[in-house]
């Protein structure tokens, strides 16, 4: 039996154990940081689905992030929706939006696909910036995060421990669903589109539909992350549609390792942690150091951090 097959489940269990136990020994600050890491990881997962697994560079992920955020915030703000309701609305809205968006964009190839995604996300940014009464523009809107209602008891998301487990549960659930999805024939067919679209068509796959499905899944996952971010901060603004959010998800995913699913979480885990570390140590130079670290990381590990591990394991196999 190769080392690879032994290491993976062990590493996986170790990480899960750490994540479950973490809030009991981490300070409040680090709990908050970990919550952010999980949410950003979910956002990056959305990007990984369309880029790492389908091979399409969606440089407009911020549209899903922003939309998901508002689809959670607005029902809570205007209709006093509960968390579950708000999340359901978010998922439904993002699914519908991503599906329509995907159908429109499916005809574009490579560069033009990228352009389209950039343009659409910036259109949303400008619309959001302009519609102050609805979106709060760049000042944004604040809400009081409702309690998590389980029927006969409620939990407050203002309790960091509760919030942590809530976010962990959702991220974990989505991660498992996505991982399972890419092991089904349909999921594998999506990967085939990335590898060789022409051939995939000629062995019987409707690649247009596959791309649309993947695009939709990617949008929903990113939207959920946006929604969770609102529940975390109790706030969002039109800036959540700005392209820098997309750039972050791209950076996190690629540094963590695109096409690996775990890479989407490893990226933010390492980078957000570093960013916090360095910015406290040296607030003036931290972006310069971050930039240098990014360059160093991608130079040493072009397939990302997860890619490094895969490489190490497969070398031992031989």
């Amino acid at each position, binding site marked *: 039996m190769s080392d690879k097959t032994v290491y993976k489940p062990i590493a996986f269990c170790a990480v899960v154990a750490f994540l479950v136990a973490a809030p009991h020994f981490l300070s409040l600050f680090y709990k908050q940081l970990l919550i952010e890491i999980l949410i950003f990881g979910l956002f990056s997962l959305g990007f990984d689905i369309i880029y790492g697994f389908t091979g399409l560079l969606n440089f407009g992920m911020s549209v899903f992030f922003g939309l998901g955020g508002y689809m959670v915030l607005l029902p809570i703000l205007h209709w006093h929706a509960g968390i579950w309701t708000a999340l359901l609305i978010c998922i439904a809205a993002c699914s519908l939006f991503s599906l329509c968006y995907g159908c429109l964009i499916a005809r574009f190839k490579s560069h033009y696909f990228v352009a389209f995604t950039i343009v659409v996300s910036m259109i949303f940014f400008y619309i959001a910036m302009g519609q102050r009464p609805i979106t709060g523009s760049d000042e944004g809107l604040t809400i009081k995060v409702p309690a998590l209602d389980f029927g006969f008891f409620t939990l407050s998301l203002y309790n960091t421990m509760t919030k942590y487990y809530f976010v962990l549960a959702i991220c974990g659930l989505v991660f498992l669903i996505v991982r399972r*999805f890419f*092991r089904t024939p349909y999921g*594998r067919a999506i990967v*085939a589109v990335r590898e060789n679209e*022409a*051939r995939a068509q*000629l*062995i*019987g*796959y409707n690649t247009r539909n596959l791309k649309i499905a993947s695009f939709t899944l990617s949008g929903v996952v990113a939207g959920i992350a946006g929604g969770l971010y609102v529940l975390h901060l109790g706030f969002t603004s039109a800036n959540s549609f700005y392209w820098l959010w997309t750039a972050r998800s791209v950076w996190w995913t690629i540094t963590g390792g695109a096409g690996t699913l775990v890479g989407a979480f490893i990226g933010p885990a390492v980078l957000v942690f570093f960013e916090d570390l360095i910015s406290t140590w040296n607030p003036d130079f931290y972006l310069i150091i971050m930039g240098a670290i990014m360059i160093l990381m991608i130079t040493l590990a072009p397939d990302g951090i997860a890619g490094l591990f895969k490489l190490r394991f497969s070398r031992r196999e031989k």
Partner: protein
Amino acid sequence: MSKATILRTEGLTKRFGGLVTTNRVNFELKEGEIKALIGPNGAGKTTFYNLITGVYKPDEGRITFMDEDITRLPPHEICRKGIARTFQITSIFPKLTVYENVRLAAQVGFGRGVSAFRESSTLKAVNEHVANILEAVGLADLRDRVSAEISQGDQRLEEVAIALGSRPKLLLLDEPTAGLSATETWLLVEKIKELYNTGIIKNIIFVEHDLEVVTGLAHNICVLNYGEVVKDGCVDDVCNDPGVQEVYLAGGKVNATEG
């Protein structure tokens, strides 16, 4: 009893701007027939394949497969009807293993379409079929190797295995021995014969430049030149036809693998 016609094209024509790559081609393949498609480079053989598989749409003419008009269907539907092809330049999924490559083809059309809910490893029928194909083609011990890393000869075999994975009724081979050594060529030809004899695939069209392969494998030959059919008949008739000899065989002696 006359054999059924598997594939027929009538008056098939394709133009690219001013260039006519396929000119009123009438082609027929009967059940159980292995037919070679030969002609000089640029004669329109690959275009012909692209027309049949739906990658190009013909400007005129009709394509009938198993009594069904497939002229206007998109490529993925044509494949599901039962036509599979290989490529002259190896076109596999390089980062996936040999097994995964064939499985991708096999997944389509087993029962109710491509499942999005059950893990691939649990689909017994699919996995059995993949194992059978790999066994038949002779790649069983390479099944978990990454496709980009196996030899050229094995990759050409993999091309065939992927095509067979879709359980086609008609197999289109595009220069299957291109780039192979003499030994590898012989091995591949023997494999194809075996696949035919064991009934895995009974209807084959193949494009070839190597006339030894052609005469060794084909029942009939169709000769194309400048997009037109020059001659279509059994091996002996075609090889002895003076028109064909002039056009393609350059006075009788074969060109070995071109290019």
